[in-house]
């Protein structure tokens, strides 16, 4: 038998130091409110909400290879649910009820759309184009159904997050508390997705992404897998939208627009598709860049962000995180064989 060429590319494990680095980063994020000013805190809080949105897309695009260009539609459903449904609930649980309702609506819409697309065999660029159309439809509804959505002017009145039980209630009004709430949700989402995608389930998704026909002939109902991923991803996008509506206090048709759908794709691509943590970095980088450019001239930023994206695709097609990972692996010399999924 032929011997195995030792120079063949092998999967390498993430360096152990990476976990330490992630934990260190989390500690910094948790301590950030102790030394920063309120404005910077709200900027980071909003960036984390968009990072959650980016993670939701990465779970679908990065882990299963299905790119949606209409993800903002689901972000918008979650966002609009807060000022529409929230005021109907006269307790401190209003935001929670509105969040659950928005996430449920997003899940139902995703299930119906996804079922017909995915089980209808729509894949690749065709899927992307249909979801793009979905985004346009959602934006038209947001503008046109003004009695419900406020039209171009948008809506205010999203209730603050809080909880009311046994006659006791607690409202999260302070920006520091909101910051910790967002941090907790983002961290929990990352951990759950990382654990889920790190085992057999993640390998199956990678296999479907790689060769769906083969996965099907091995007995996997690939359409079922993709539908579940699509629905969960859209529900996570709705959570991000709901958080955004509460902390910003305002929802506009931009929240379901094509621009936001495009931006989230850029964040994921820049950070590193399929890495989960990469889109968080991508969202932070892009939002920071947007702020810097806007402070010079607010009309410039779409142009600069577009050029930045093109440059990133040419220079670092895998994104920032895989690049950092390679640097770390090289620097630490820990090329340990791995049996884990990506």
């Amino acid at each position, binding site marked *: 038998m032929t011997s195995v060429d030792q120079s*063949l590319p092998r999967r390498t494990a993430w360096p152990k130091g990476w976990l330490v680095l992630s934990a260190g980063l989390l500690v910094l994020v948790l301590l950030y409110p102790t030394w920063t000013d309120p404005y910077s805190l709200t900027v980071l809080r909003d960036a984390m909400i968009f990072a959650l949105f980016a993670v939701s897309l990465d779970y679908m695009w990065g882990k299963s290879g299905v790119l949606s260009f209409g993800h903002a539609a689901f972000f918008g459903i979650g966002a609009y649910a807060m000022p529409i449904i929230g005021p109907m609930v006269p307790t401190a649980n209003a935001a929670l009820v509105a969040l659950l309702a928005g996430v449920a609506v997003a899940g139902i819409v995703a299930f119906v759309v996804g079922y017909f697309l995915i089980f209808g065999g729509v894949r690749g660029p065709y899927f992307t184009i249909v979801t793009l159309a979905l985004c346009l439809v959602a934006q038209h509804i947001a503008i046109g159904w003004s009695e419900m959505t406020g039209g171009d002017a948008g809506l205010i009145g999203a209730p603050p997050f809080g909880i009311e039980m046994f006659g006791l209630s607690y409202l999260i009004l302070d920006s520091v508390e909101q910051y910790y709430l967002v941090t907790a949700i983002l961290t929990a989402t990352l951990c759950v997705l990382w654990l889920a995608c790190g085992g057999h389930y993640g390998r199956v998704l990678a*296999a479907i992404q790689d060769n769906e*026909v083969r996965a099907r*002939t091995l007995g996997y109902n690939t359409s079922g897998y993709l539908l579940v991923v699509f629905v969960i991803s859209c529900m996570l996008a709705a959570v991000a939208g709901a958080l955004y509506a509460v902390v910003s206090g305002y929802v506009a048709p931009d929240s379901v627009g094509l621009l936001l759908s495009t931006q989230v794709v850029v964040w994921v691509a820049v950070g590193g598709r399929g890495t989960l943590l990469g889109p968080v970095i991508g969202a932070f980088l892009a939002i920071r860049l947007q702020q810097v450019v806007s402070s010079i001239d607010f009309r410039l930023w779409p142009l600069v962000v577009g050029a930045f994206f093109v440059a990133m695709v040419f220079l670092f097609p895998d994104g920032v995180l895989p690049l950092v990972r390679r640097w770390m692996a090289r620097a630490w010399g820990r090329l340990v064989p791995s049996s884990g999924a990506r």
Partner: protein
Amino acid sequence: MTTETLLRARDLAIRFGGVAAVQGVSLSLSDGELRCIIGPNGAGKSTLFNLLAGSLKPDHGTIEFGGRSIVGLAVHEFARVGIARKFQVPSLFTSLTVRENLSVASRVREGAMNREARIERTLVDLELEDCVNVLAGELPHGQKQWLEIGMALMSRPRLLLLDEPTAGMGPEETQKTARLLLGLASSLTIVVIEHDMYFVRALASPTLVLHQGQIIAEGNFADIERNDLVRDVYLGRQ
């Protein structure tokens, strides 16, 4: 010894436009049987596999597997009833490692320990234990073929369909594949499409000859080799 019929296909037919790719094909496979299918290019061998594996639905005819009709089931359901397949061109998950490919292929419900034990056994059987962490897309061609056979075995099939398992292999690898299949044949039913007559001869199993979508001969390979029609349309007179 009595053997039960595992698969019974009757009068299968499928057309692609004006071309009758398979017409009136009937075959019956018993438990633990090894069967070869030979024939010239375009004879309908891979199309027949596509029908048996559910990738294509026949225009006409029935397929029973374990006494149950399976025509019209989804592809993944064919796999779930116990039909595994190796494609003509190695079809692997190229961005996954050898071990991960085998792990994904083990869809059956079993504990992680059992799965790992079966993976280890398969790696040893296929002599792939030195490249467990190599990306499947980077393997040499012969090892890709073995890995795909290994993936099919990991799904614990009752019927294994192998489309040209030795294509691109050297003589030593071909012999090893023949030994492997002969060893497996006692525990599961195997159908092999092959163009390599040395390999088919080594298997020395019942052989079926397809030509223009129809079965033109069936029997032991020794008899098939002497069949005038088969020699005219496929094997040649030399």
